[in-house]
């Protein structure tokens, strides 16, 4: 474990915890953006340039902005009344740990875990050119299906927005 990984991991974990526990929703959204940046840093450190930069472009540039806008347009970022932790919080943590332990036990004792690990992939070989080549040859069908899905979603959103205007 290198020093840069330790720094990135600490950044991701601390900002993720902050995103969950802070009272102000906008603060939470900003902390979530920091988490996204930290994850992008991890990808870059592994040599996956395209994934890392796309992570920043999509998650920090678009998703975080969308979350922030949604918060502003629906209600104020001010924390509402009420306690932060419910009375059964401790029990919840206990149940979560128990589920994690059971799942971990099952996975480590399954046949998949006993299979020999595939050779470590050298991330620095995953150039953007290769990435594009694979997308355009081997993975062309999933790519097209995704594109179609996104176009349909966008057209749907536009139609919903249009109808509201007509009834006015």
């Amino acid at each position, binding site marked *: 474990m290198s020093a840069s990984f330790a720094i990135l991991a600490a950044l991701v974990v601390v900002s993720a915890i902050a995103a969950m526990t802070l009272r102000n929703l906008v603060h939470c959204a*900003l902390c979530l953006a920091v988490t996204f940046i930290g994850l992008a840093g991890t990808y870059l450190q592994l040599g996956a340039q*395209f994934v890392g*930069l*796309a992570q*920043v472009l999509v998650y*920090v*540039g678009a998703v975080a902005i969308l979350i922030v806008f949604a918060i502003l347009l629906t209600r104020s*970022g001010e924390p509402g009344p009420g306690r932060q932790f419910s009375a059964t919080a401790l029990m919840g943590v206990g149940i979560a740990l128990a589920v994690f332990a059971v799942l971990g036990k099952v996975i480590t004792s399954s046949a998949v875990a006993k299979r020999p690990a595939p050779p470590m992939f050298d991330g620095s070989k995953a150039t*953007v*050119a290769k990435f594009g080549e694979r997308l355009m040859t081997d993975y062309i069908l999933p790519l097209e299906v995704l594109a179609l899905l996104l176009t349909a979603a966008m057209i749907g959103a536009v139609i919903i927005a249009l109808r509201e205007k007509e009834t006015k």
Partner: protein
Amino acid sequence: MTELLEQFPVTLKHAILDVLSKFLPEWLLPIASAILSITPILIVFPTIFALTTVVERKVLGRIQNRPGPNRVGIPLTNIRLAGFGQFIADGIKALIKEDIVPRNADKVVHFLAPIAVVIPALLAYSVLPIGKNMTALDLDAGVLFFFAVGSATELSVFMAGWSSRNKYALLGAMRAIAQMVSYELPLVLSTVGVIMMTGTLSTTQIVEAQAGGFWHWHAATPWGFAAFFLFLVAATAEANRTPFDLPEAESEIIAGYFTEYSGFKFALFFLGEYLGLFAMSGLGITLFLGGWHAPLPALEVVPSWIWFFLKLGVFIMFFIWLRGTLPRLRMDQLMNLAWKFMVPLTLITIVAAGVWRFMDPGFTRCLTVTAMIVVPYLLLSNALFTARGVGKRTYRYAD
């Protein structure tokens, strides 16, 4: 002599590294090398910013038929330097001014926003090839890095506007984000043609593909020319410059998202904005205007980095000229221009670039590609101007 000047910054760096390698431990050397690559960026571009503030005020003054700043020179002497001491005075003023934070402001976010504006702007320079062998970070996906870093600015603008607890600041931030999100699309799409043509996302290789005189530059082809102009318009909007300065329209919303900032934090916003503009100009030079290449092969005796900064200077003067000439757009005009004109036209330039790639060179190719761009341009601009929203303004209550 030419060779010496050409690689002077690189040789200087290696010389310093050689000296350092005698004192520093092995593991510190990569960090020292990185710091040596970053330092010139941190010195040169803020210096250009400082000079630009004076030049902009002087040129705007000339455009408006007044002298502009011409008093401040060297203190305690009568030397005026034509007013070029102004930026030092401004810097000192910004540093010693009181820093006022609104009582209700979100203190932490309010403090972090100016920093979050400057850092992405500076990061963007790391992939710009300033001269031959002079790219601080020669990434395989350099153009993608540039846009990824640029998209982080939107969040910092929101941080500034939201944390100030001021309606003008929030309005400015909303306008800024709406504008940046809308114009980011044509900005990125206008560069796709270049990336398709060179087959790489690396800024260094894109510059290398344009070697050998201005007729090899991407802006010299019909599709490249159109894409370059679309890029220029989108870049002006991304940098919040007139005629797209709605986020900080001083006659409408005071100063927009940095209304509640004073002293050096205000100066940081100013710096971040100009650094963003220079970085965007640098990307335009890299993608369309041959980067650090000389316009004529015979002129290559002049060092490559001088060509880069000359081109940057032309860009800066162009933006100042625009600011002195054009009025501000209205919000609906802004959005209509982005979505109904820029986006379709950038998509068409991408197709035109593809046609250019696969047709035989010659007059027919030139004519076909030009027609492919000019006809939709005329149709779209006609539709935009006859469409509701552009033209004479109608008032609901004021008539």
